[in-house]
């Protein structure tokens, strides 16, 4: 009950705090340079030059405190020991290079990077193209999109049931094992199979992200001028050629944006691995490795250096992604 009260209080205070901030700051601005009197023109010009910054300030402040500062602090911490006090130079980085678990994480992240964006984009494109002309296409689309509404942890829990393993002879409650047993195979603990378990985890993210890719690509496909498709049909192109030679090249920019967006997500993948395997059986990834060192190993230095590696990998893709998205908008 008390919690509910505080939650409600926080919301109300937050909203009214914002209103109060914008009202008061603008009031003060107008008081300092009143838009009347002999210098009204100059005052309005000056106040208008300042006003956007009043609106931007809260967002900028929050960004600096929670985004920019942590980046520099992580950089700083990655050069210090586990307590974050003693300077150790590049020792953490040296450790990274030697660490087997880090190498495993890098390899797995690379696998995720290759498989998930490609699979999600391809399935999304296929779903978008196939559902576009169906009468029940919208129903199919909502079903495919629905996993987007599930949190990664929720999705991981659902898929845990799919991969669930019971000893041979017992009734299998896992969907996959049930199918395997029904078709005469032996049940397996899928998520403990080294190397291949990575792909079982990737399936979850693909399942979630296909919906996202489908929605964006479907909109892009609908934006293609109908006449170009009709012209291609008149030119003798079959459905397959129309799709690959006329439609896909025209939405290439959107495909790139979807691909890179999923790529960035993949580099940060954490929840699914934590919930499914916690990095055991050779399925560790960078984000989970960082989490392990931070909150289980209590080593600020090593955790921060892993964080820096993730950032270095994400940044170039992010820049490229934003550029592409901007070019798309033009």
């Amino acid at each position, binding site marked *: 009950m008390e919690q509910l009260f505080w939650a409600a209080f926080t919301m109300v205070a937050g909203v009214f705090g914002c209103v109060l901030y914008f009202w008061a700051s603008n009031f003060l601005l107008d008081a300092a340079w009143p838009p009347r009197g002999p210098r009204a023109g100059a005052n309005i010009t000056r106040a208008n030059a300042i006003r956007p910054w009043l609106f931007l300030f809260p967002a900028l402040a929050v960004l600096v405190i929670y985004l920019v500062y942590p980046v520099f602090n992580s950089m700083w911490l990655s050069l210090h020991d586990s307590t974050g006090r003693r300077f150790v130079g590049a020792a953490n980085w040296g450790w990274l290079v030697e660490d087997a678990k880090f190498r495993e994480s890098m390899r797995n992240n690379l696998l995720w990077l290759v498989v998930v964006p490609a699979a999600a984009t391809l399935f999304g494109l296929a779903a978008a193209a196939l559902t576009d002309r169906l009468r029940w296409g919208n129903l199919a689309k909502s079903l495919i999109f629905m996993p987007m509404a599930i949190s990664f942890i929720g999705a991981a829990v659902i898929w845990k049931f799919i991969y669930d393993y019971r000893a041979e002879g017992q009734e299998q409650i896992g969907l996959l094992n049930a199918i395997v047993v029904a078709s005469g195979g032996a049940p397996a603990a899928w998520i403990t199979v080294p190397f291949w378990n990575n792909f079982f985890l990737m399936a979850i993210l693909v399942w979630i992200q296909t919906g996202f890719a489908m929605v964006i690509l479907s909109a892009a496909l609908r934006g293609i*001028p109908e*006449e*170009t498709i*009709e*012209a*291609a*049909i*008149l*030119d*003798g*192109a079959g459905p397959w*050629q129309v799709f690959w*030679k*006329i439609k896909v*090249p*025209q939405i*290439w920019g959107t495909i790139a944006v979807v691909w890179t967006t999923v790529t960035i997500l993949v580099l940060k993948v954490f929840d699914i691995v934590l919930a499914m395997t916690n990095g055991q059986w050779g399925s560790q990834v960078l984000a989970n490795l960082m989490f392990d060192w931070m909150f289980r190993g209590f080593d600020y230095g090593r955790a921060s250096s892993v964080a820096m590696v993730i950032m270095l990998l994400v940044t170039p893709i992010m820049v490229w992604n934003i550029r592409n998205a901007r070019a798309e908008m033009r």
Partner: protein
Amino acid sequence: MADVRLTDVAKAYGEIKVLAGINLHIREGELVVFVGPSGCGKSTLLRMIAGLERISAGTLEIDGRVVNDVPPAQRGIAMVFQSYALYPHMSVRDNMAFALKIAGKSRAEIDRAVEDAARKLQLSPYLDRLPKALSGGQRQRVAIGRAIVRDPKVYLFDEPLSNLDAALRVATRIEIAQLKESMPGTTMVYVTHDQVEAMTLASRIVVLAGGGISQVGTPLELYERPENEFVAQFIGSPAMNLLAGRIEETGAETVVRLDSGGVARAAVPTRAADRGMAVNVGVRPEDLAPTGAAEALYEGRVDILEALGEVTVLHFERRGEAPAVLAKLPGIHAGLRRQVVRLGALPAKVQVFAGGRSLHHRDAVAAG
């Protein structure tokens, strides 16, 4: 190089009938223009010939072969779209070569066809550009080039000039006329809502209205001998004046007493039984001229005067519900503003419509 024959062609979207009973024979080497008000189905008819719309009933033959169920690419047609429909991701060369590549033609053959077409359309310097780097007129030429390289039996144009500005439209219209001139055996079907395009380009015009063909004829046939009031008013600008009246004298020349007070003499033969029949007399604004004779076709006060220099358009004061009568006089007549003017017309230029149909064509219909 082929003819197109439509027999009882109809198009319906579910319950809604768009076109019905279309019978038309487009002969080899003709440039036939479909005109009509928007929504009359002219583009739909073209798209049915192209194969982009299913034919609900009737048969379509191209070069003597029924092609109702033949896919568009195998009908031997090529189409130029209003929006050009160029493939934005392909260079001009690839745009023109696409159909030939799909057809599996050899590299040399494709290059030759593309370069020939490019030379014909003055596109050679632009072959490696993307469509977005071209002007509107150049894009339209690429669209035409894309049709030419396929060497189709029939060219289909769907309002190809509508997206161009006025000056370019005139220039491109002349280019299309020259293109037609350079390929005399080619059959072309051209859809437009612009009657200047129709009048200047067409060997024959098909006027579509109300889901059917209103009249088919050469541009001047349509202008001089419209079969019905719709065609009479659709062709020509400003539209033909229609004046209600009753037939007073019959014979080789018909005399009609008009409700507005005038008397019209028309070189239209009528029978004795027609005396007293309620008719509409049609006379084009450009065929009206001031007259000093005692008997005038129309007398009225000039309400609005539009002086265009080359011609002067007089809008007369309206009488009751009838639309204003217009007269188009050559030259400058600025002094006529607010004046009462008496107008007459040569009997050969006067049409008589009964029940919406021209009496010129009454016997033709009865005989045929």
